[in-house]
């Protein structure tokens, strides 16, 4: 499931912090991590990031499922650099990976998607002449919502191909998966229209462009 399913209602300092501050903090932290190449500082940052994540009291199982793939990538990247003979870079990169994933998770476990959407639409406001901000926020949440659905469609198509003895044929898996993905997209489009959300996004954008 997507990282954004991690939000839980809790009473921690990060939950109380405004969404914009957390997002800004995340961007600044990413800049700091990219700039800083001193391994000791990177490791210290990673420890702070882990502490921040822990402070949001994240749900254990789902959080681990989100973290483990990144840890594997971090370890692989570190190992590769080590093999290249650059121990400093190995530590630095691995620590940066850990910091970034923990900080993003700290934001997503402490910020309801509704708020993130509000932020996305606020951030998109300067673009409102071209893109309706509400629409962008909706696309943002739909993307997050669609990821687990696409995973499920792929897994089911793979199982269906296997049960027909077509394990080795990518076509047997990808064609039904593609068809179902298009079907899913059409169904979501209908649902958004039916719920009046499309009307809302468009009417906001119509109000948006200021005539000067």
């Amino acid at each position: 499931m997507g990282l954004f399913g991690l939000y839980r209602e809790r009473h921690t300092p990060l939950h109380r912090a405004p969404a914009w501050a957390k997002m800004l903090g995340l961007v600044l932290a990413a800049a700091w991590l990219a700039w800083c190449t001193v391994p000791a500082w990177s490791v210290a940052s990673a420890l702070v990031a882990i502490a921040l994540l822990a402070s949001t009291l994240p749900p254990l199982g789902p959080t681990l499922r989100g973290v483990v793939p990144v840890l594997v990538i971090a370890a692989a990247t570190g190992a590769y650099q080590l093999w290249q003979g650059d121990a400093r870079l190995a530590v630095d990169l691995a620590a940066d990976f850990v910091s970034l994933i923990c900080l993003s998770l700290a934001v997503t476990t402490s910020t309801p998607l509704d708020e993130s959407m509000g932020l996305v639409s606020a951030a998109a406001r300067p673009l409102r002449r071209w893109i309706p901000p509400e629409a962008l926020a909706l696309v943002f949440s739909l993307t997050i919502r669609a990821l687990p659905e696409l995973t499920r469609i792929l897994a089911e198509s793979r199982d269906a191909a296997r049960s027909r003895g077509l394990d080795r044929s990518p076509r047997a898996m990808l064609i039904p998966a593609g068809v179902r993905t298009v079907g899913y997209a059409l169904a979501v489009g209908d649902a958004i229209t039916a719920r009046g959300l499309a009307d809302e996004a468009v009417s906001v954008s119509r109000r948006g462009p200021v005539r000067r």
Partner: protein
Amino acid sequence: MIEFQDASVVAPGTTVRILEPTTLTLAERRVAIIGANGSGKSTLARLINGLVLPSTGSVTVDGRDTRRDAAAVRRSVGFLFTDPSAQLIMPTAAEDVALSLRRTVKGKGERASAALAALESIGLGDKGSVSVHALSGGQRQLLALAGVLAVGPSIIVADEPTTLLDLRWRAHVDALLAGLDQQVIEVTHDLDAASRADRVIVMESGSVAFDGKPRAAVAAYRRLMAGT
């Protein structure tokens, strides 16, 4: 009140007529639409909230044309799909209902408590922070209904809302739909549910084959199915 005036539908990009010109006035509180697969039931249902627009003729809801006044029509017509998964957009149950409320309830706190109230009214009060994926099919359909009811529609159109559900959830959703104050138009393959309607429309090959009381309608439907 829903009015079809000679409304017909041609499949987009083709010349194939999937709904023959149809004139109907739906004013009964409970209307069921039954018929074979591909007979045009969904097309008829989707015309009511403007998801499908008539190729000829018109469809109006409380006097508002679905073509000219689509947004207003959709505000008063809630739509329930067969598979609620596509209808649920946000990660958790409460957030999804809150999304429906974005237009009507300003203020995060108010929205959250209104969403919770909507969930409670439908028996999902303890599921607010549960991931949509963790809900059963029946609970998802209830959640979709909560999201639809939260905006206060006067009409609910449901396209086979219980087809994917087991018997127990089917009975539960049926009971909920039956208890609604709203006018309910339900497409269904469940002849027991159709028998409880005030009026039943039988579709066949894109036109209304029978329109009347449940008992006669179900008999007509059975005759149709036996004939092919």
